[in-house]
């Protein structure tokens, strides 16, 4: 569809995304690239943080090991200080007595301040010759002070000079050491000699101390001299010492103190000598580390050395709290960097992925809308009806668009419509007043609709149906009108034909209605006839029974009647009046019974029916002759208006006589005395019951002549409510004993047999009027009647 020239028709424009976001969102795989880059960056940052952490850990580890080594050195130096203090005691005194040594040791608080020092002793350098004297002096002194004393130097030897332990504190746990000759042990003697020669403290290699069984220990020795030879505590090198103060130090206890102060983050092993040989182990903090020499793990480890008292100690350290994965996780730096990186990566991934999906969806929507628009465009362009769009914003509503069907419909007339300057009014409507209905309807708020004749550009006229609806923008304001024009010429012509056909149909309906009424009448007649036939069938069955019954009844009646006559003659002279009346009543009753039987048999007579051409006037005369006695008795007169040359009628003479006799007798009974019986006959030409002012009866569809007989009396007539019932069997208005109610029913039945009919009415001048119609011989034949068989 060509876009309208108006600019306000675009509904709901979609705001385009920014250029950068659009570029990013247009690449669906970019989200994964961003995710991968984020993860790599996170890994690099984490590794850098981990390495930094590891370097920091290593520095901390080195510092820790130095601190631990310093702590060991400090412990040993404290021991040395203690020995120097003891040497000072000897320097300040000529002699040091055991109790003085004891007080000195107690003042030091060995167990509290020097837990690693198990013994603080003094070994004297004694020539073999002076040993016994010295032992004696010490024993005496010990006895005076209530303390134990040694009795001999042990182990015994032949040396000229012995290094005898003469004082040791705390004595209670070390008294077995008294008398021990240090020189007996080469390691102890070397250390003592070194101390004596160098004047410096000396330390033994690891020893098995009696004070700490199972734990390696060392003796720290410091040579002392008599006070006159040197300042207290000091000694000139090369001079002969008088003895040695020494401290028995348990190395594990030293290390335990170090462990107490530094914790167990770093394991430490101490070896005597320049190398960490397993046989020279002095003690350790933490687990055994020898087995991990070749461990390739990343745990920190190092070795360092310490020289103390002419002995070299080797320290081996190893970090116990790993800087590996656990530390990596425990460290806030790498974990934080990884977490932050992961979060940023995930968020970036989600953002790009959402952008990508949004763009994909938007593109799908755009494709669908484009397809729909194309479909709509094709539909409108291909439509058979004309479509046009009007610009509602401008006066006169110029046409913005018309589809090809519209242009074909007007045959090029609105070709200029695409220019946007042709209004709907100029589309060729011959009656602008009618077309003006559409704007009026639209302004009223409803859709415009009208059908009117429209002229094409070539001058031809066609019927067009216009339907116009408003188009509104988002604010509800009408911007355009869209309309459909349909060429309804064929429909209008069809409507006109239909209108004419409707009129014709209405006329046919009227005719049919008349026919239906006619058929209804015929149907009612047929229904009536059917009812009569049903009634006749019932009566025939009654008649069959009645005929046999009548024969059996008449014989007894005969007996009674003759019997009555016999009695009447027998008692002729002796019968009195009451008896005579009884006999007469009985005779009358028999005759009445016979009369009823005969009437009943006549009504239901299934005797043979033998019609012959007869002169109806002659039958009437013969019937009048048969009732002559009754005419005379009632003193009635008969007036005849009989048409001469009546056409013969096909009747059973005896049965028709019965009809007229019944009519005459009824008339005489109605008139009482001095009545007038008027009888008329005439013939009428009929054509399908037309021309006859009587019910058509059996003459429907038949043409010919009928003979009409009317019997009129001068009696009171028939009550209006009795007229419909006078032909019903056993219906009578006569007093009891005068009528059976069968006379007129028999007459009607007989006429039915002859395809004639009878009608009862009241004459205008009064009296009952019975009309009998019988078809003449020239009438078209009817279906033959059933022949009845007789019986005796």
């Amino acid at each position, binding site marked *: 569809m060509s876009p309208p020239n108006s600019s306000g028709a675009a509904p709901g424009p979609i705001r385009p995304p920014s250029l950068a976001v659009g570029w990013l969102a247009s690449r669906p795989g970019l989200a994964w690239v961003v995710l991968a880059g984020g993860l790599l960056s996170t890994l690099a940052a984490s590794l850098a943080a981990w390495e930094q952490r590891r370097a920091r850990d290593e520095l901390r580890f080195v510092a820790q090991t130095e601190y631990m080594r310093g702590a060991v050195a400090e412990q040993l130096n404290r021991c040395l200080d203690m020995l120097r203090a003891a040497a000072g005691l000897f320097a300040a005194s000529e002699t040091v007595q055991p109790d003085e040594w004891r007080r000195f040791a107690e003042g030091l608080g060995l167990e509290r301040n020097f837990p690693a020092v198990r013994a603080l002793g003094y070994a004297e350098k004694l020539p073999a010759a002076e040993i016994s004297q010295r032992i004696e002096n010490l024993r005496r002194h010990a006895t005076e002070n209530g303390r134990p004393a040694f009795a001999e130097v042990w182990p015994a030897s032949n040396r000229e000079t012995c290094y005898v332990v003469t004082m040791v504190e705390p004595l209670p746990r070390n008294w077995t050491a008294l008398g021990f000759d240090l020189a007996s042990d080469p390691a102890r003697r070397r250390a003592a000699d070194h101390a004596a020669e160098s004047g410096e403290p000396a330390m033994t290699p690891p020893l098995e101390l009696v004070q700490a069984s199972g734990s390696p220990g060392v003796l720290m020795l410091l040579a002392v001299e008599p006070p006159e030879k040197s300042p207290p505590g000091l000694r000139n090198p090369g001079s002969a010492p008088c003895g040695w103060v020494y401290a028995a130090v348990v190395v594990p206890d030293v290390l335990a103190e170090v462990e107490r102060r530094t914790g167990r983050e770093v394991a430490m092993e101490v070896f005597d000598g320049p190398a960490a040989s397993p046989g020279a182990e002095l003690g350790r903090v933490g687990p055994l580390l020898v087995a991990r020499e070749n461990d390739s793990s990343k745990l920190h480890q190092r070795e360092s050395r310490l020289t103390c008292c002419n002995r070299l100690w080797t320290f081996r350290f190893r970090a116990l709290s790993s800087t590996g994965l656990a530390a990596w996780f425990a460290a806030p730096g790498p974990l934080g960097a990884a977490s932050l990186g992961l979060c940023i990566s995930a968020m970036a991934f989600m953002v790009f992925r959402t952008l990508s999906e949004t763009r994909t969806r938007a593109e799908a929507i755009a494709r669908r809308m484009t397809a729909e628009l194309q479909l709509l465009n094709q539909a409108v362009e291909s439509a058979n009806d004309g479509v046009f769009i009007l610009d509602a914003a401008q006066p006169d509503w110029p046409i913005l668009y018309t589809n090809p069907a519209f242009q074909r419909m007007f045959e090029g007339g609105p070709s200029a419509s695409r220019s946007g300057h042709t209004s709907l009014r100029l589309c060729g409507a011959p009656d602008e007043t009618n077309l003006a209905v559409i704007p009026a309807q639209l302004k009223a708020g409803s859709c415009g609709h009208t059908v009117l004749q429209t002229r094409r550009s070539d001058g031809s006229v066609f019927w067009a149906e216009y339907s116009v609806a408003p188009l509104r923008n988002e604010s509800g304001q009408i911007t355009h009108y869209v309309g459909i024009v349909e060429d309804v010429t064929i429909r209008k012509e069809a409507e006109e034909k239909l209108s004419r056909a409707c009129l014709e149909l209405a006329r046919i309906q009227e005719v049919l209605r008349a026919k239906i009424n006619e058929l209804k009448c015929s149907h009612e007649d047929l229904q009536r006839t059917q009812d009569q036939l049903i009634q006749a069938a019932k009566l025939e069955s009654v008649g069959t029974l009645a*005929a046999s019954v*009548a*024969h*059996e009844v*008449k*014989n*007894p*009646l*005969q*007996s*009674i*009647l*003759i*019997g*009555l*006559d*016999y009695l009447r*003659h*027998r008692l002729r002279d002796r019968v009195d009046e009451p008896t005579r009346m009884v006999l007469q009543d009985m*005779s009358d009753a*028999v*005759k009445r019974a*016979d009369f009823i*039987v*005969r009437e009943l*048999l*006549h009504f239901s007579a299934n*005797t*043979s029916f033998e019609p012959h051409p007869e002169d109806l006037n002659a039958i009437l005369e013969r019937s009048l002759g048969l009732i002559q006695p009754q005419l005379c008795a009632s003193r009635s007169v008969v007036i005849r208006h009989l048409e001469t040359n009546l056409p013969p009628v096909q009747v059973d003479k*005896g049965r028709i006589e019965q009809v007229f006799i019944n009519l005459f007798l009824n008339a005489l009974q109605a008139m009482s005395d001095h009545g007038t019986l008027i009888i008329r006959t005439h013939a009428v030409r009929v054509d399908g019951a037309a021309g006859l002012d009587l019910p058509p009866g059996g003459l429907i569809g038949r043409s010919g002549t009928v003979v009409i007989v009317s019997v009129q009396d001068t009696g009171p007539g028939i009550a209006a409510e009795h007229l419909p019932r006078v032909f019903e069997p056993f219906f009578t208005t006569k007093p009891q004993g005068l009528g059976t109610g069968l006379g007129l029913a028999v007459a009607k039945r007989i006429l039915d047999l002859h395809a004639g009919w009878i009608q009862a009415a009241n004459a205008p001048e009064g009296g009952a009027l019975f009309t009998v119609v019988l078809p003449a011989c020239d009438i078209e034949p009817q279906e033959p009647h059933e022949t009845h068989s*007789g*019986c*005796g």
Partner: protein
Amino acid sequence: MKRILVVDDEQAAARLLKAALELTGDYQARVVHTPEDALDAIREFQPHLVLLDIIMPGMLGGDVAQAIRSDPAIGDIPIVFLTAAFQPHLVREHEGVAPSDPCVAKPADLAEIIRVIERHARREPPSHLASSAPPTPPPQP
């Protein structure tokens, strides 16, 4: 005195009719109740008239009439049909019943029967039967 033969299977009606006729003093009556006995009774009794019922068990009245008329000796005896059929003309439909045959419908009183008898009865019995005929009583006024 006329002789009347009553042929009727109704015995009571026949007996009463015989009694009533004879009570008048003008008639001598005989009664038979079966068609088979009728011919013998006619030959013997030589009636002036036969009152003949039509519907009887065994043989219809028409058949009896034919038998009578076929016999030259009694063939001229008048016959009046007496029937309980409801219409006299229907009697003529029976075989043996001539259209001119008189017919009386039951129930008929005595006067009607006498009227018919007097109209149709023979004046004298056949001569060849006169000798054997019972004596005719003198007619009474």
